[in-house]
């Protein structure tokens, strides 16, 4: 027994860049892939981790001191770095919860499909990282594998139900029939967004407003280009932080470099996950031939929708202002400014693409995210260090906009933390409000698309 435990501890202690190639090779074989292919895929992920670590050093070495300078010079208490969802995903895949949860949630999905408790077939293995993130937050919070797996699985069940519920919007608003989006940090905002839309319907005057997405895209297009956004943010932060000219320019080019290089490193993780991703897709799909299901996909396939794109661009400057204005926020928005589109998908879909409502809904989404993101910063930092990423010693904490969008897991770990009574009440209160709002709008999506659904049924007859 001791030797097994010793061996497991040894492998975990090696860190994800060595552990993941081993685990992914085994998982690949488990899903019926060839040894050579599985091993190469595992190595690719390991290499990706080494690459991500290099970018993190660049990121924390440049943005970290800039955040400190903001604290000292302007008294802005923004000492939590937004490292972005790509690093969040890497951290999640690097935790000990990850390999177990991947297999567990696949099986859970098959069971839920077989018992008709969900129609969503989640073949998007990459985005299992959101469930793994939920599970690993609980794992480190409670120092318990059981709690980690429990929170990961419950999150997955709720997200599958939300994906089922929003599937008519995927078909009729986004034009993708037979598809749903079990994409945690997007879809967990859907009930809140449909509730806001219901309220907005009743506000005289406001309920008639709209704006043109094309104009916004043209005017704010620059915020869609990471390289430009990095330079601009770096220069602004350098000026605010009281850097000299050389320092300002240096920060600009380094932040641009982070935003350009990071996606390439993280795409290595995706490349390496492809064999088990395909293996798991076949594993589920061949079990349910001919069954009426929704194929669960990444919300990335709809964020290019004109209204969604316009909102994600105009929200860049608004998000930065919000970060400074919200008194409870400690997060300095950065890497996820390029990923706002994911958390605001339903802010604009709930209003069927109405831009004015989309902006209002997105602002409320962000206000929630800054609260949750700040609250989760301590745990996220612990996790990042545990998987071996080199954050600078001492003051700086990490979190992210996308990570702060995990409101369902956040509620769960608040409720389950019996030691913190105030936090428990907060979590319970949030869960009750969330549940009531979802119940209140439960028929709204079908109502929004009543004409389209009726037409489809006529054709079917």
């Amino acid at each position, binding site marked *: 027994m001791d030797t097994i435990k010793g061996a497991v501890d040894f492998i975990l202690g090696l860190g994800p860049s060595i552990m993941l190639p081993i685990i992914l090779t085994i998982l690949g074989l488990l899903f019926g892939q060839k040894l050579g292919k599985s091993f190469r895929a595992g190595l690719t992920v390991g290499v990706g981790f080494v690459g991500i670590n290099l970018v993190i050093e660049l990121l924390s070495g440049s943005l970290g001191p800039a955040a400190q300078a903001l604290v000292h010079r302007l008294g802005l208490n923004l000492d939590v770095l937004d490292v972005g969802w790509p690093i969040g995903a890497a951290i999640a895949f690097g935790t000990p919860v990850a390999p177990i949860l991947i297999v567990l949630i696949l099986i859970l999905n098959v069971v839920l499909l077989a018992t008709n408790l969900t129609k969503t077939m989640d*073949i998007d293995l990459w985005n299992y990282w959101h469930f793994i993130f939920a599970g690993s937050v609980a794992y480190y919070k409670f120092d318990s594998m059981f709690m980690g797996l429990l929170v990961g699985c419950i999150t997955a069940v709720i997200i599958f139900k939300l994906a089922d519920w929003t599937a008519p919007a995927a078909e009729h608003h986004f034009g993708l029939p037979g598809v749903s989006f079990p994409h945690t940090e997007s879809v967990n905002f859907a009930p809140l967004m449909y509730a806001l839309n219901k309220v907005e319907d009743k506000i005289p005057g406001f309920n008639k407003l709209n704006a043109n997405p094309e104009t916004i895209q043209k005017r704010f297009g620059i915020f869609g280009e990471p390289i430009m956004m990095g330079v601009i943010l770096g220069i602004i932060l350098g000026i605010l932080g009281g850097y000299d000219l050389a320092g300002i320019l240096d920060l600009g080019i380094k932040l641009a470099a982070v935003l350009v290089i990071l996606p390439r490193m993280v795409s290595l993780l*995706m490349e390496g996950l492809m064999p088990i991703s395909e293996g798991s897709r076949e594993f589920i799909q061949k079990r349910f031939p001919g069954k009426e299901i929704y194929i669960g996909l*990444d919300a*990335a*396939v*709809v964020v290019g929708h*004109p209204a969604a794109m316009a909102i994600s661009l105009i929200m860049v400057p608004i998000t930065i202002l919000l970060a400074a204005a919200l008194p409870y926020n400690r997060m300095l928005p950065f890497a996820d400014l390029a990923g706002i*589109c*994911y958390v605001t998908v339903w802010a604009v879909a709930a209003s069927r693409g109405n831009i004015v409502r989309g902006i209002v809904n997105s602002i409320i989404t962000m206000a929630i995210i800054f609260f949750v993101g700040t609250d989760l910063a301590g745990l996220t930092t612990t996790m990042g260090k545990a998987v071996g990423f080199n954050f600078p010693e001492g003051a700086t904490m990490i979190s992210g906009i996308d990570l702060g969008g995990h409101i369902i897991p956040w509620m769960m770990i608040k409720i389950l933390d019996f030691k913190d009574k105030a936090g428990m009440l907060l979590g319970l209160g949030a869960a009750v409000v969330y549940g009531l709002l979802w119940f209140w709008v439960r028929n709204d999506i079908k109502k929004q698309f009543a004409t389209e659904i009726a037409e489809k049924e006529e054709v079917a007859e």
Partner: protein
Amino acid sequence: MAKKKILVACGSGIATSTVVANKVKELLNSKGVDAHIQQCKAAEVPSLIDGFDLLVTTTPIGDVGNVPVVRTISFISGIGIEKDIELIIEKLGLEK
């Protein structure tokens, strides 16, 4: 035959575009076509698209001028791959 330049886009240029880029690369290699494939995020497309022969995207993209566009989710969902492959070959002006 001239080298084909293909831009592959998705939400962040990280996940779904990696799947598509790999599949398109495999496809063109198997046909002996020399190809340059670049990944990007949807919002970058307007500033990058000049000089590319084809845009393959998993997410809707507005105005890209005269460059032909193939929107596909089949490489990710596993359904309808053949049709999208035919479309890519046709829009690149290759023989079947």
